[in-house]
Protein backbone atom coordinates (compact mmCIF):
# COMPACT_ATOMS: atom_id res chain seq x y z
CA UNK A 1 0.00 0.00 0.00
CA UNK A 2 1.51 3.33 -0.99
CA UNK A 3 1.05 6.78 0.44
CA UNK A 4 -0.97 7.90 -2.61
CA UNK A 5 -3.35 4.90 -2.31
CA UNK A 6 -3.84 5.82 1.36
CA UNK A 7 -4.39 9.47 0.41
CA UNK A 8 -1.47 10.47 2.62
CA UNK A 9 1.81 12.35 2.19
CA UNK A 10 5.25 11.86 3.70
CA UNK A 11 7.00 14.82 5.36
CA UNK A 12 10.58 14.63 4.08
CA UNK A 13 11.91 16.62 7.04
CA UNK A 14 10.73 14.42 9.90
CA UNK A 15 9.41 11.37 7.98
CA UNK A 16 5.91 11.55 9.44
CA UNK A 17 3.10 10.19 7.24
CA UNK A 18 0.28 12.75 7.14
CA UNK A 19 -3.33 12.35 6.00
CA UNK A 20 -4.14 14.55 3.04
CA UNK A 21 -7.10 16.87 3.67
CA UNK A 22 -10.09 16.38 1.33
CA UNK A 23 -9.90 19.94 0.04
CA UNK A 24 -7.42 19.84 -2.79
CA UNK A 25 -5.01 22.64 -3.53
CA UNK A 26 -3.22 24.77 -0.96
CA UNK A 27 -0.10 23.79 0.97
CA UNK A 28 -0.15 21.18 3.71
CA UNK A 29 1.98 21.92 6.74
CA UNK A 30 3.42 18.99 8.72
CA UNK A 31 1.81 18.96 12.19
CA UNK A 32 4.97 17.47 13.73
CA UNK A 33 7.69 19.77 12.40
CA UNK A 34 5.98 22.59 10.49
CA UNK A 35 7.60 21.94 7.10
CA UNK A 36 5.57 22.27 3.90
CA UNK A 37 4.63 18.79 2.63
CA UNK A 38 3.98 17.59 -0.93
CA UNK A 39 3.03 14.08 -1.95
CA UNK A 40 5.85 14.16 -4.52
CA UNK A 41 8.61 16.73 -4.91
CA UNK A 42 7.31 19.75 -6.82
CA UNK A 43 8.44 19.98 -10.49
CA UNK A 44 10.96 17.22 -9.76
CA UNK A 45 11.50 16.10 -13.37
CA UNK A 46 11.81 19.60 -14.84
CA UNK A 47 14.35 20.66 -12.18
CA UNK A 48 16.35 17.45 -12.55
CA UNK A 49 16.48 17.70 -16.34
CA UNK A 50 17.46 21.40 -16.26
CA UNK A 51 20.26 20.82 -13.75
CA UNK A 52 21.57 17.74 -15.58
CA UNK A 53 21.79 19.65 -18.86
CA UNK A 54 23.50 22.53 -17.01
CA UNK A 55 26.06 20.08 -15.63
CA UNK A 56 26.65 18.62 -19.09
CA UNK A 57 27.31 22.09 -20.57
CA UNK A 58 29.61 23.12 -17.69
CA UNK A 59 31.53 19.87 -18.09
CA UNK A 60 32.93 21.04 -21.46
CA UNK A 61 34.84 24.15 -20.25
CA UNK A 62 35.76 22.22 -17.09
CA UNK A 63 37.75 19.78 -19.23
CA UNK A 64 39.06 22.19 -21.88
CA UNK A 65 40.34 24.98 -19.59
CA UNK A 66 43.36 24.41 -17.33
CA UNK A 67 42.52 23.63 -13.71
CA UNK A 68 46.04 24.26 -12.47
CA UNK A 69 49.18 26.07 -13.63
CA UNK A 70 52.68 25.25 -12.41
CA UNK A 71 55.07 28.21 -12.65
CA UNK A 72 58.77 27.56 -12.16
CA UNK A 73 61.71 29.90 -12.83
CA UNK A 74 62.20 28.14 -16.16
CA UNK A 75 58.73 27.78 -17.60
CA UNK A 76 54.98 27.75 -17.00
CA UNK A 77 52.83 24.70 -17.68
CA UNK A 78 49.05 24.52 -17.55
CA UNK A 79 47.25 21.29 -16.69
CA UNK A 80 43.76 20.22 -17.59
CA UNK A 81 42.05 17.47 -15.58
CA UNK A 82 42.87 14.73 -18.08
CA UNK A 83 46.36 16.17 -18.55
CA UNK A 84 46.96 15.76 -14.82
CA UNK A 85 45.84 12.13 -15.01
CA UNK A 86 48.15 11.55 -17.98
CA UNK A 87 51.08 13.00 -16.09
CA UNK A 88 50.46 10.70 -13.11
CA UNK A 89 50.21 7.79 -15.53
CA UNK A 90 53.51 8.70 -17.23
CA UNK A 91 55.17 8.90 -13.81
CA UNK A 92 54.04 5.26 -13.27
CA UNK A 93 51.67 6.17 -10.43
CA UNK A 94 48.95 3.98 -11.89
CA UNK A 95 46.83 3.58 -8.78
CA UNK A 96 46.54 7.30 -8.02
CA UNK A 97 46.05 8.02 -11.73
CA UNK A 98 43.12 5.58 -11.70
CA UNK A 99 41.64 7.14 -8.52
CA UNK A 100 41.78 10.66 -9.98
CA UNK A 101 40.54 9.50 -13.40
CA UNK A 102 37.54 7.72 -11.88
CA UNK A 103 36.69 10.48 -9.38
CA UNK A 104 36.97 13.45 -11.71
CA UNK A 105 36.18 12.05 -15.17
CA UNK A 106 34.15 8.85 -14.93
CA UNK A 107 31.96 9.72 -11.92
CA UNK A 108 30.49 13.00 -13.27
CA UNK A 109 29.74 11.40 -16.66
CA UNK A 110 28.31 8.28 -15.01
CA UNK A 111 26.07 10.48 -12.83
CA UNK A 112 24.84 12.60 -15.74
CA UNK A 113 24.23 9.46 -17.83
CA UNK A 114 22.40 7.63 -15.04
CA UNK A 115 20.10 10.57 -14.30
CA UNK A 116 19.27 10.98 -18.00
CA UNK A 117 18.59 7.23 -18.16
CA UNK A 118 16.30 7.33 -15.11
CA UNK A 119 14.44 10.29 -16.61
CA UNK A 120 13.89 8.55 -19.98
CA UNK A 121 12.93 5.29 -18.26
CA UNK A 122 9.96 7.16 -16.75
CA UNK A 123 8.62 7.69 -20.29
CA UNK A 124 9.87 4.61 -22.12
CA UNK A 125 9.29 1.01 -21.02
CA UNK A 126 12.56 -0.73 -20.16
CA UNK A 127 13.74 -4.01 -18.68
CA UNK A 128 15.53 -2.83 -15.53
CA UNK A 129 13.37 -3.58 -12.43
CA UNK A 130 12.35 -0.65 -10.22
CA UNK A 131 14.39 -1.92 -7.28
CA UNK A 132 17.53 -1.88 -9.44
CA UNK A 133 16.78 1.69 -10.55
CA UNK A 134 16.38 2.73 -6.91
CA UNK A 135 19.72 1.10 -6.07
CA UNK A 136 21.34 2.89 -9.01
CA UNK A 137 20.03 6.17 -7.63
CA UNK A 138 21.33 5.42 -4.11
CA UNK A 139 24.71 4.68 -5.72
CA UNK A 140 24.95 7.98 -7.60
CA UNK A 141 23.96 9.84 -4.45
CA UNK A 142 26.72 8.06 -2.56
CA UNK A 143 29.52 8.70 -5.06
CA UNK A 144 28.42 12.21 -6.06
CA UNK A 145 30.55 14.16 -3.64
CA UNK A 146 33.74 12.27 -4.53
CA UNK A 147 33.98 14.17 -7.82
CA UNK A 148 35.04 17.16 -5.73
CA UNK A 149 38.36 15.35 -5.13
CA UNK A 150 40.27 17.26 -7.82
CA UNK A 151 39.10 20.61 -6.44
CA UNK A 152 40.54 19.74 -3.02
CA UNK A 153 43.80 18.53 -4.57
CA UNK A 154 44.13 21.90 -6.32
CA UNK A 155 43.32 23.72 -3.07
CA UNK A 156 46.03 21.92 -1.11
CA UNK A 157 48.65 22.19 -3.87
CA UNK A 158 47.96 25.90 -4.38
CA UNK A 159 48.22 26.48 -0.64
CA UNK A 160 51.33 24.37 -0.18
CA UNK A 161 53.52 25.10 -3.18
CA UNK A 162 53.98 28.83 -2.96
CA UNK A 163 57.68 29.66 -3.07
CA UNK A 164 57.93 32.82 -5.08
CA UNK A 165 59.99 32.60 -8.26
CA UNK A 166 61.29 29.09 -7.60
CA UNK A 167 58.03 27.23 -7.97
CA UNK A 168 54.41 28.22 -7.60
CA UNK A 169 51.18 26.32 -8.24
CA UNK A 170 48.01 28.25 -8.96
CA UNK A 171 44.43 27.26 -9.59
CA UNK A 172 42.99 27.87 -13.07
CA UNK A 173 39.64 28.91 -14.54
CA UNK A 174 38.71 25.28 -15.28
CA UNK A 175 38.49 24.64 -11.53
CA UNK A 176 35.53 27.02 -11.20
CA UNK A 177 33.67 25.27 -14.04
CA UNK A 178 34.52 21.85 -12.67
CA UNK A 179 33.26 22.74 -9.18
CA UNK A 180 30.08 24.10 -10.78
CA UNK A 181 29.62 20.83 -12.72
CA UNK A 182 29.86 18.77 -9.55
CA UNK A 183 27.44 21.02 -7.65
CA UNK A 184 24.97 20.92 -10.57
CA UNK A 185 25.00 17.10 -10.69
CA UNK A 186 24.53 16.92 -6.92
CA UNK A 187 21.59 19.34 -7.05
CA UNK A 188 20.13 17.35 -9.96
CA UNK A 189 20.18 14.07 -8.02
CA UNK A 190 18.71 15.78 -4.94
CA UNK A 191 15.77 17.18 -6.90
CA UNK A 192 14.96 13.79 -8.46
CA UNK A 193 12.11 12.02 -6.68
CA UNK A 194 12.66 8.24 -6.88
CA UNK A 195 9.03 7.62 -5.87
CA UNK A 196 8.05 8.63 -9.43
CA UNK A 197 9.77 5.43 -10.66
CA UNK A 198 7.40 3.36 -8.52
CA UNK A 199 4.31 5.44 -9.34
CA UNK A 200 4.31 4.21 -12.94
CA UNK A 201 1.17 2.19 -13.54
CA UNK A 202 1.16 -1.46 -14.60
CA UNK A 203 4.54 -2.39 -13.12
CA UNK A 204 5.44 -4.37 -10.09
Amino acid at each position, binding site marked *: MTDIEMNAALCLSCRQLIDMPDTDGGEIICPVCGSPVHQRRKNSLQKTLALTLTALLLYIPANVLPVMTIETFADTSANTILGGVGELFNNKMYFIAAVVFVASFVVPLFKIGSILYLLTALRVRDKLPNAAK*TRLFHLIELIGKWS*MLDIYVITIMAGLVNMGFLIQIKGGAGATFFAATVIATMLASKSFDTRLIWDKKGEK
Partner: protein
Amino acid sequence: MFMENLTVTAKVFTACAACGEAVVFESNSEEKIICTRCGSTVKKHGRNSALFVTAFSISAFMLFVPALLYPVLDISVSSLSSSATVLGSIKALYEEGLGAVGLLVLLTSVIVPMGFLLTCFYVAVSALLRRRLPMFIPAMRLANFFQEWHMADVFLVGILVSIVKLIDMSELTFDYGIYLLMLVCTFTAITEVYYDTLLFRIKAGNYD
Protein backbone atom coordinates in the same frame (compact mmCIF):
# COMPACT_ATOMS: atom_id res chain seq x y z
CA MET B 1 -7.33 -8.06 29.18
CA PHE B 2 -5.26 -5.80 31.41
CA MET B 3 -2.01 -7.15 30.07
CA GLU B 4 -3.09 -6.14 26.61
CA ASN B 5 -3.61 -2.58 27.73
CA LEU B 6 -0.21 -2.49 29.36
CA THR B 7 1.67 -3.65 26.31
CA VAL B 8 -0.03 -1.31 23.81
CA THR B 9 2.48 1.18 22.49
CA ALA B 10 2.06 4.09 20.13
CA LYS B 11 2.38 3.30 16.44
CA VAL B 12 4.50 5.34 14.08
CA PHE B 13 3.13 5.97 10.59
CA THR B 14 5.76 6.65 7.98
CA ALA B 15 6.57 5.76 4.39
CA CYS B 16 9.65 4.76 2.46
CA ALA B 17 11.18 7.98 1.13
CA ALA B 18 12.56 6.16 -1.93
CA CYS B 19 9.37 4.46 -3.22
CA GLY B 20 6.40 5.70 -1.18
CA GLU B 21 5.38 2.38 0.39
CA ALA B 22 3.60 3.00 3.71
CA VAL B 23 5.32 1.55 6.79
CA VAL B 24 3.89 1.20 10.30
CA PHE B 25 5.94 0.15 13.32
CA GLU B 26 5.81 0.47 17.10
CA SER B 27 7.43 3.59 18.47
CA ASN B 28 9.69 1.68 20.88
CA SER B 29 11.07 -0.57 18.12
CA GLU B 30 14.87 -0.75 18.14
CA GLU B 31 15.21 -2.93 15.03
CA LYS B 32 16.43 -1.76 11.66
CA ILE B 33 13.49 -1.45 9.26
CA ILE B 34 13.93 -2.03 5.54
CA CYS B 35 11.29 -1.21 2.93
CA THR B 36 9.76 -4.47 1.69
CA ARG B 37 9.15 -3.07 -1.79
CA CYS B 38 12.42 -1.37 -2.78
CA GLY B 39 14.94 -2.43 -0.12
CA SER B 40 15.86 1.08 1.07
CA THR B 41 16.45 1.68 4.78
CA VAL B 42 13.42 3.27 6.46
CA LYS B 43 14.81 3.39 10.01
CA LYS B 44 18.25 2.46 11.30
CA HIS B 45 19.09 0.14 14.18
CA GLY B 46 18.27 1.95 17.42
CA ARG B 47 20.11 0.42 20.37
CA ASN B 48 22.79 2.80 21.72
CA SER B 49 22.73 4.86 18.55
CA ALA B 50 21.91 8.14 20.34
CA LEU B 51 24.79 7.50 22.74
CA PHE B 52 27.26 6.79 19.91
CA VAL B 53 26.21 9.87 17.94
CA THR B 54 26.48 12.08 21.04
CA ALA B 55 29.96 10.86 21.88
CA PHE B 56 31.47 10.78 18.39
CA SER B 57 29.93 14.00 17.09
CA ILE B 58 31.19 16.14 19.97
CA SER B 59 34.64 14.47 19.86
CA ALA B 60 34.93 15.12 16.13
CA PHE B 61 33.78 18.70 16.59
CA MET B 62 36.39 19.41 19.25
CA LEU B 63 39.17 17.85 17.16
CA PHE B 64 38.07 19.89 14.14
CA VAL B 65 39.33 23.18 15.60
CA PRO B 66 43.02 22.18 16.00
CA ALA B 67 42.78 20.22 12.70
CA LEU B 68 42.06 23.48 10.93
CA LEU B 69 44.75 25.51 12.67
CA TYR B 70 47.68 23.06 12.60
CA PRO B 71 49.55 22.56 9.32
CA VAL B 72 48.64 19.33 7.52
CA LEU B 73 51.74 19.06 5.34
CA ASP B 74 55.25 20.48 5.29
CA ILE B 75 57.15 20.83 2.04
CA SER B 76 60.72 21.75 1.24
CA VAL B 77 62.22 22.39 -2.19
CA SER B 78 66.01 22.89 -2.06
CA SER B 79 66.45 25.39 0.77
CA LEU B 80 62.94 26.81 0.85
CA SER B 81 60.21 25.34 2.99
CA SER B 82 56.53 25.96 3.46
CA SER B 83 53.54 24.39 5.19
CA ALA B 84 49.84 24.29 4.46
CA THR B 85 46.91 24.61 6.82
CA VAL B 86 43.35 24.00 5.63
CA LEU B 87 42.31 27.62 6.14
CA GLY B 88 45.58 28.95 4.65
CA SER B 89 45.04 26.92 1.46
CA ILE B 90 41.55 28.33 1.05
CA LYS B 91 42.99 31.84 1.48
CA ALA B 92 45.56 31.09 -1.23
CA LEU B 93 42.78 30.15 -3.67
CA TYR B 94 40.99 33.41 -2.89
CA GLU B 95 44.16 35.45 -3.49
CA GLU B 96 44.64 33.76 -6.88
CA GLY B 97 41.23 35.00 -8.02
CA LEU B 98 39.38 31.72 -7.43
CA GLY B 99 37.18 33.15 -4.69
CA ALA B 100 34.13 31.14 -5.75
CA VAL B 101 36.01 27.83 -5.52
CA GLY B 102 37.57 28.94 -2.22
CA LEU B 103 34.16 29.72 -0.78
CA LEU B 104 32.83 26.35 -1.94
CA VAL B 105 35.77 24.53 -0.33
CA LEU B 106 35.31 26.54 2.88
CA LEU B 107 31.60 25.66 2.97
CA THR B 108 31.86 21.96 2.09
CA SER B 109 34.97 21.06 4.08
CA VAL B 110 34.75 23.33 7.12
CA ILE B 111 31.42 25.04 7.81
CA VAL B 112 28.99 22.30 6.72
CA PRO B 113 30.87 19.41 8.43
CA MET B 114 31.17 21.40 11.66
CA GLY B 115 27.50 22.37 11.46
CA PHE B 116 26.58 18.73 10.81
CA LEU B 117 28.48 17.55 13.89
CA LEU B 118 26.99 20.26 16.10
CA THR B 119 23.37 19.74 15.01
CA CYS B 120 23.80 15.94 15.21
CA PHE B 121 25.08 16.32 18.75
CA TYR B 122 22.09 18.44 19.73
CA VAL B 123 19.54 16.08 18.17
CA ALA B 124 21.25 13.04 19.72
CA VAL B 125 21.29 14.65 23.18
CA SER B 126 17.55 15.30 22.81
CA ALA B 127 17.05 11.64 21.90
CA LEU B 128 19.14 10.54 24.90
CA LEU B 129 17.19 12.73 27.31
CA ARG B 130 13.95 11.60 25.64
CA ARG B 131 12.61 15.12 25.43
CA ARG B 132 12.70 17.86 22.84
CA LEU B 133 15.22 20.53 23.73
CA PRO B 134 14.44 24.08 22.50
CA MET B 135 14.89 24.47 18.72
CA PHE B 136 14.92 20.68 18.28
CA ILE B 137 13.07 20.77 14.94
CA PRO B 138 15.26 23.49 13.33
CA ALA B 139 18.37 21.58 14.50
CA MET B 140 17.02 18.36 12.96
CA ARG B 141 16.22 20.04 9.65
CA LEU B 142 19.67 21.65 9.56
CA ALA B 143 21.32 18.29 10.30
CA ASN B 144 19.39 16.75 7.37
CA PHE B 145 20.60 19.50 5.07
CA PHE B 146 24.22 19.39 6.25
CA GLN B 147 24.30 15.59 5.93
CA GLU B 148 23.94 15.93 2.16
CA TRP B 149 26.75 18.44 1.72
CA HIS B 150 29.58 17.62 4.12
CA MET B 151 32.77 16.63 2.32
CA ALA B 152 35.59 16.66 4.88
CA ASP B 153 36.37 13.03 3.99
CA VAL B 154 36.83 13.92 0.31
CA PHE B 155 39.16 16.72 1.41
CA LEU B 156 41.28 14.23 3.37
CA VAL B 157 41.66 11.95 0.34
CA GLY B 158 42.47 15.10 -1.69
CA ILE B 159 45.37 15.82 0.64
CA LEU B 160 46.64 12.27 0.23
CA VAL B 161 46.44 12.52 -3.58
CA SER B 162 48.34 15.83 -3.57
CA ILE B 163 51.10 14.18 -1.52
CA VAL B 164 51.57 11.59 -4.26
CA LYS B 165 51.55 14.30 -6.92
CA LEU B 166 54.22 16.36 -5.18
CA ILE B 167 56.43 13.64 -3.80
CA ASP B 168 58.91 13.47 -6.68
CA MET B 169 59.58 17.20 -6.92
CA SER B 170 59.98 17.97 -3.23
CA GLU B 171 60.39 16.62 0.25
CA LEU B 172 57.09 16.20 2.05
CA THR B 173 56.33 15.41 5.66
CA PHE B 174 53.03 14.87 7.46
CA ASP B 175 52.24 17.36 10.18
CA TYR B 176 49.87 17.12 13.17
CA GLY B 177 46.93 18.52 11.20
CA ILE B 178 46.58 15.49 8.94
CA TYR B 179 46.40 13.04 11.87
CA LEU B 180 43.76 15.21 13.52
CA LEU B 181 41.86 15.40 10.24
CA MET B 182 41.95 11.58 9.94
CA LEU B 183 40.41 11.27 13.41
CA VAL B 184 37.79 13.90 12.55
CA CYS B 185 36.81 12.00 9.39
CA THR B 186 36.64 8.64 11.18
CA PHE B 187 34.45 10.05 13.95
CA THR B 188 32.24 11.88 11.43
CA ALA B 189 31.78 8.63 9.50
CA ILE B 190 30.74 6.81 12.70
CA THR B 191 28.32 9.66 13.52
CA GLU B 192 26.78 9.40 10.07
CA VAL B 193 26.37 5.62 10.26
CA TYR B 194 24.27 5.88 13.43
CA TYR B 195 22.45 9.18 12.80
CA ASP B 196 18.81 8.74 11.73
CA THR B 197 16.27 11.58 11.66
CA LEU B 198 13.20 9.39 12.11
CA LEU B 199 14.69 7.30 14.91
CA PHE B 200 15.92 10.29 16.93
CA ARG B 201 12.68 12.22 16.43
CA ILE B 202 10.70 9.30 17.82
CA LYS B 203 13.13 8.93 20.74
CA ALA B 204 12.92 12.64 21.53
CA GLY B 205 9.13 12.33 21.79
CA ASN B 206 6.33 14.26 20.20
CA TYR B 207 6.10 17.31 22.46
CA ASP B 208 8.36 19.99 23.88
